[in-house]
C-alpha cells in the first residue's frame, strides 16, 4: 500500500535558532508585537510503499535517523496519513 507521510524536523529545545529569532524580531515591524518563542523547522512530505502503516512508520523513522534529521541538534516526528493507505 502507498502511504503518504509528513516528517517534521525541529531544532531540539535549547539549541539556539537564529532564523526563529530573526523572524521574531521582524514580526513587530509588520504590526505583530505579540509573537514569542518563534522556532523554524522543516516539513518533508513523502510517500512510501509498505504493508502496514506501522511498517511505513518504521521505514520513515529509519530515514530520519540516517539522513532526514541530524540527531545532534534536531528531533523529528512522523505523521502518516492513514486515510490513503488502502
Amino acid at each position, binding site marked *: 500500500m502507498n502511504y503518504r507521510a509528513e516528517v517534521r524536523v525541529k531544532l531540539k529545545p535549547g539549541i539556539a535558532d*537564529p532564523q526563529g529569532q530573526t523572524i521574531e524580531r521582524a514580526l513587530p515591524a509588520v504590526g505583530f508585537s505579540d509573537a514569542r518563542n518563534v522556532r523554524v523547522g522543516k516539513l518533508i512530505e513523502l510517500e512510501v510503499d509498505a504493508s502496514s502503516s506501522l511498517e511505513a512508520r518504521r521505514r520513515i523513522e529509519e530515514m530520519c535517523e540516517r*539522513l532526514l534529521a541530524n540527531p*545532534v541538534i534536531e528531533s523529528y516526528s512522523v505523521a502518516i496519513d492513514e486515510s490513503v493507505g488502502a
Partner: protein
Amino acid sequence: MNARVGIITFPGTNCEQDCERAFAALGGAPVRVWHGDTTLPDVDVVVLPGGFAHGDYLRTGALARFSPIMDAVRAHADAGGTVIGICNGFQVLCEAGMLPGALRKNAGLKFRCKWVELKVENASTRFTSRAGAGQILRIPINHFEGNYYCDEDTLETMRADGRVILRYVQNPNGSLDDIAGICNSSGTVFGLMPHPERACEALLGSIDGAVIFESILDNARVSA
C-alpha cells in the same frame, strides 16, 4: 619524497584549486579525487575542501557524507592517515560522525566573510606542530554555518584531551566555547571553519595558513 595529498571534489566544492595550489607551493604532491570514486589513490593526506557539496541541500554536509568516496576516507583515518576538513569539509566530517557535534547557522544569521585571528590552543598535533603554543594565526573565514555545537560531556572531553585546537580570538559566529577547529580522539581528523589555503601566500595578506599545511606535510612525511 613529497607527501601525497588527495583533494576530494564533490559537486559544489569550490576550494579544491586553492587547496591544490597551496599544498603544491608548500612542497606537497596534490592529486584530485572525485567524490564518486570508491577508492583513494595512494595518498598520505586527505583534504575535504570548502564549498557547497551537493548544494548543501537538506543540511550542510548531509548528502556528501553518503558520497561513495567517504568509506575510503573513513578507512584512511582509521588506519592512521591524516584527514583535514576545511569549512564545508568540516561540516561533512561532523555529519559523517568522524568529528563530534554539528555546525549551526551563524548567530545573528550573518554570513561571515572576513579575516579573523585564531589562537593555537594545542601545538602538539600533527596539524599544528609548526606553531608555537598560543600563537595567533590570521586566516580568513567565509561561511554561513560555522556556529559549532556539541553537548556538554563532549565539550568537556575534548577540552580535557586538548582536542580544541583552534579558538577564535573574537567569536564571529556564536560558536560554542569560541571553537574554530577540533580533532577526533585519535588525532588523525581535523576540522576547521577558517580557510588556511587562502592564507599561504604573502600576496593574499597572510601566510599563517602555511603553518597548518606545513605541519600536515611534515608529519605526513614522517608517518609515510
